[in-house]
């Protein structure tokens, strides 16, 4: 898929969504919001739970920020396109929807990856934490970004089936991720009914592995588990896209609600 048309589509859609932003808006979305999230939860952890180092929250929330790009970027692009009446063109395009959707997602995933990695580096510097297995940490960040991208692809396809074009589903999925991925709460701190979902939620194992990487360990079991989660989501996205394409050819639109 790494041909020039793919990259051109990726860049055009990214510019279309964010090209109107001035530096102030970009800084608010990419710096103020992520940093605020890390500070808020680090404070919560220090003041309420106690005992956990700030780096625990820095690692968790930085990887969560990676998810933000993959999850929201595609969803917002699609809902904006939907409001502008452009979703129908995706159905009639010669390329399969997954090709286009993944191209749209690509720059947001890279964007989230960069923001998360910058936040992680900055946060670890501020908390004076030196990761003892930096390569393992890098693998964790990449895996988290891949998982989040797959989750974003599945969520955005499901969003097309709902009447709402303003990303309610995406927001709910993000809130669930915030809760279940282990960035701010260990699984045993969750209410009992939520614990099974937390065991298989995307990012959960990548975050666990990243925390172990900071302490110098390669958590291969966690990395493998995250890989499985990402692969299942990616397969779901591919399957969903195929079904979406079949439905689109029949109905003349990708917009499932119409």
């Amino acid at each position, binding site marked *: 898929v790494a041909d020039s048309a793919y990259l051109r589509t990726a860049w055009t859609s990214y510019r279309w969504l964010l090209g109107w*932003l001035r530096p*102030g808006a970009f800084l*608010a979305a990419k710096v103020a919001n992520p940093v605020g999230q890390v*500070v808020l939860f680090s404070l919560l952890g220090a003041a309420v739970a106690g005992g956990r180092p700030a780096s625990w929250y820095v690692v968790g929330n930085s990887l969560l920020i990676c998810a933000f790009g993959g999850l929201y970027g595609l969803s917002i692009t699609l809902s904006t396109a939907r409001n502008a009446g452009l979703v129908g063109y995706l159905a009639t395009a010669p390329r399969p929807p997954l090709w286009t959707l993944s191209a749209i997602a690509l720059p947001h995933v890279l964007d989230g990856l960069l923001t998360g990695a910058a936040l992680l580096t900055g946060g670890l510097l501020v908390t004076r934490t030196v990761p003892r297995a930096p390569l393992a940490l890098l693998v964790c960040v990449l895996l988290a970004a891949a998982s989040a991208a797959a989750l974003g692809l599945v969520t955005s396809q499901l969003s097309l089936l709902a*009447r709402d074009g303003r990303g*309610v589903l995406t*927001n709910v999925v993000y809130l669930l991720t915030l*809760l279940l991925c282990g960035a701010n*709460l260990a699984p045993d701190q*969750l209410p009992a009914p939520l614990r099974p979902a937390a065991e298989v939620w995307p990012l959960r194992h990548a975050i666990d592995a990243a925390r172990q990487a900071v302490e110098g360990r390669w958590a291969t079991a966690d990395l493998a588990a995250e890989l499985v989660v990402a692969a299942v989501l990616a397969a779901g996205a591919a399957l969903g896209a195929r079904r979406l394409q079949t439905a689109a050819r029949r109905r003349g639109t990708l917009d499932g609600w119409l």
Partner: protein
Amino acid sequence: MSRSAAEGLGRRRTGLPVLPGAALGAYVRQYVVPAAPILLLAQPLAFGVLTMGSRAADATVPATVTAAGAGALSMWTLLLGGASWSLWTERQQGRLRLALASPTPVAALFALFLAAAAVASFASVAVAVLAVPALFGERPDGGELARALPGLVALALAVLATGLALTPLFVGADGVVVWFDGLIYPVAILGGFFAPVSALPRLLELLAAALPPYWAFRLLTASVGGGPLRPVVAGLALTVLGCVAVYAVGMRVVLHRIRDTGSVGLG
């Protein structure tokens, strides 16, 4: 229907008494999309589980206050959303120009619109303080809830005042993103919703004291857990009045700008 009765009805439909209802209707109109109210419930639930889950077993802060911190964050998000994205949507869909053309003062219209957001945000607070402790097997304490009520009303007032002070800043599409994304967490941090403000550097503590949410959350804590109320109420009143003054002056400036440039809307 007699002519005088019809005229009376007409007056009621266009007069000041219907404004609060109209504002609430305009605000709630955003939630006609069936899935949208889920967010009103999902957000406080998620943040509530985060705060309650982080709570130590031997915590001295009452559970209602801990859960209310999540409700306060939801309240603030709704108000900030009302002051930013909702007004932006009104502008995008061409309704803002109608509001500007109406004889009703625009400042009053926007204030009522945001007040409607404050009223709607009580649904989020109810979820946070009632449902979240139950998820952790804690029974809601009726007495604690009753004592928390004035503090929660004060919180709604505080976030409303803060939202009002920011409304004139939404002078363009860019502004929406800047202020919405940039202010959710800082105000939650300075308001002490999740953790005491005393944990912050001194300068930030002083900044927090300039904002109504800080005083409102202190009022909530004092009314539930005990403590002197008078200085907290005074601080809240002072900061709320300050925000209202900022709103009044800011709206004058914005409206002048709109008349000067001839551009309808806030952009």
